[in-house]
């Protein structure tokens, strides 16, 4: 026992001796990563998606030859300012808590006359195959830039969604024992060189949520929040959820509720 303690103490001392050097190296790495991110921030390719999304929003399309300009994203028909920041939200007309993507799809179906299958077939882009949804969500998101995330989840259905999201956040399973909380439940950690927000606090959830949708340089496209969370489940080595699934909307509600009050900075750009 004492020997073990001694070992630990010696270990700690050796450790401390190295810590200085390690810290210096670390801060240099952090500086260079910051430089990298700064260089990408001016000239975010997400701007191209926003531009395209604006065109898609106003263009008359679909069997009903209608634009999306009458789409009600929760702030009234055609009102985009702040809409993204206030979603997910309960909608009386559908009786459901909907996120920006499920509501957008709803509008494309009801206003433009597309089928749900047509609209969601290309919900994310593949090389050479653009996704209208990515472009539209980037455009809608940008209309909340500078506004505060505002999802108090006061409606009973919203409150229930947020609680269910919390449950899913902590739920562990799969061959790596993962849950969302494992990587996103603590302060000041990073995975490889990427900072991980503590998504259970306003600061952490705000830091994460305010920059979506975001251009992923590793993927060469904008990721929506649905894509982000569905990919988290892929990384957890789980099976694949349905696009627009309630479990994803529940997580979004939990995160947006936690992030409420944070000012949006979107579209973002990430590795």
């Amino acid at each position, binding site marked *: 026992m004492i020997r073990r303690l001694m*070992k630990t103490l*010696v*270990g700690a001392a*050796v*450790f401390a001796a*190295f810590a200085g050097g*390690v810290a210096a*190296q670390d801060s240099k*790495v952090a500086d260079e990563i910051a430089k990298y991110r700064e260089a990408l921030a001016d000239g975010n390719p997400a701007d191209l998606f926003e531009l395209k999304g604006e065109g898609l929003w106003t263009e008359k399309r679909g069997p009903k030859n209608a634009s999306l300009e009458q789409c009600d994203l929760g702030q009234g028909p055609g009102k985009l300012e702040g809409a993204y920041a206030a979603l997910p939200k309960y909608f009386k007309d559908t009786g459901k808590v909907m996120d920006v993507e499920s509501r957008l799809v709803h509008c494309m179906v009801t206003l433009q006359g597309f089928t749900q299958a047509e609209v969601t077939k290309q919900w*994310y882009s593949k090389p050479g195959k653009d996704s209208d949804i990515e472009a539209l969500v980037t455009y809608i998101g940008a209309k909340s830039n500078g506004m505060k995330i505002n999802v108090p989840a006061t409606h009973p259905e919203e409150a*229930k969604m947020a*609680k*269910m*999201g*919390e*449950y*899913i*956040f*902590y*739920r*562990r*399973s*799969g*061959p*790596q*024992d*993962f*849950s969302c*909380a*494992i*990587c996103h*439940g*603590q302060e*000041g*950690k*990073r*995975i*490889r*060189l990427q900072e*991980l927000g503590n998504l259970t606090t306003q600061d952490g959830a705000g830091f994460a949520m305010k920059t979506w949708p975001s251009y992923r340089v590793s993927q060469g496209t904008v990721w929506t929040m649905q894509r982000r969370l*569905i*990919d988290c*489940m*892929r*990384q957890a*080595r*789980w*099976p*694949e*959820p*349905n696009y627009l*699934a*309630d*479990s*994803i909307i*529940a997580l979004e509600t939990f995160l947006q509720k936690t992030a409420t009050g944070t000012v949006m900075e979107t579209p973002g750009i990430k590795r």
Partner: protein
Amino acid sequence: MNFKFGLFFGLTVAFAAPAFAQKALEAPGGKYAKDAEQVFRSSFRDDNPKYWMSRLAQDETMKTCGQYRDNPPRKIGEKLEKLNAATIRYPVEGKLIGDWKEGEKLAAVGTGGHIGFIQPDPAGKLRGGNCYACHQLAKKEVAYGTIGPSLQHFGKIRGNSDEIIKYAYDKIYNSNAFSACTNMPRFGLHNWLTPEQITHIVAFLVDPESPVNKD
């Protein structure tokens, strides 16, 4: 996975839990926990093969950790630790230290085991330990995570006694044998890494020639 043991243990927890439950922090989901489980389960694509869906199953450790937000009362934690310690298996030849060069490769690989339809790993893709995602190891790799403690100079600091070697092996095989609800996966329990692969990572950690200790 030892489901029988798990079930037995589950019953124990069911009786024990109320006494130690932290009243301030309710279990995630509160009164909607059951609804949430059902919503979660029914959210997956119908064309996910059955064996993929089995990855949503939870053993007692997973369930309990979720319930306590990964911070179970000590008494429950201790029980989980015992339960997990009992799962550890060793290589047939009994040698717990392998080839650090193989371990070095495994430590860097973060892919393998991804399923789904969007970006699944191709068949036969090497499953790695993804150690650098969370730990600092060799000095030359600057892109390391900090979810776990730094393991740089692991062997240099702790030596390579049989005791240390066994500790490293056991910890990788089943991390929850030491601290219940840790963030670290149970690599051996889930057959994510074979016992032989684990010995390679042990070597990467303790071998004096390994870049973990040499640089």
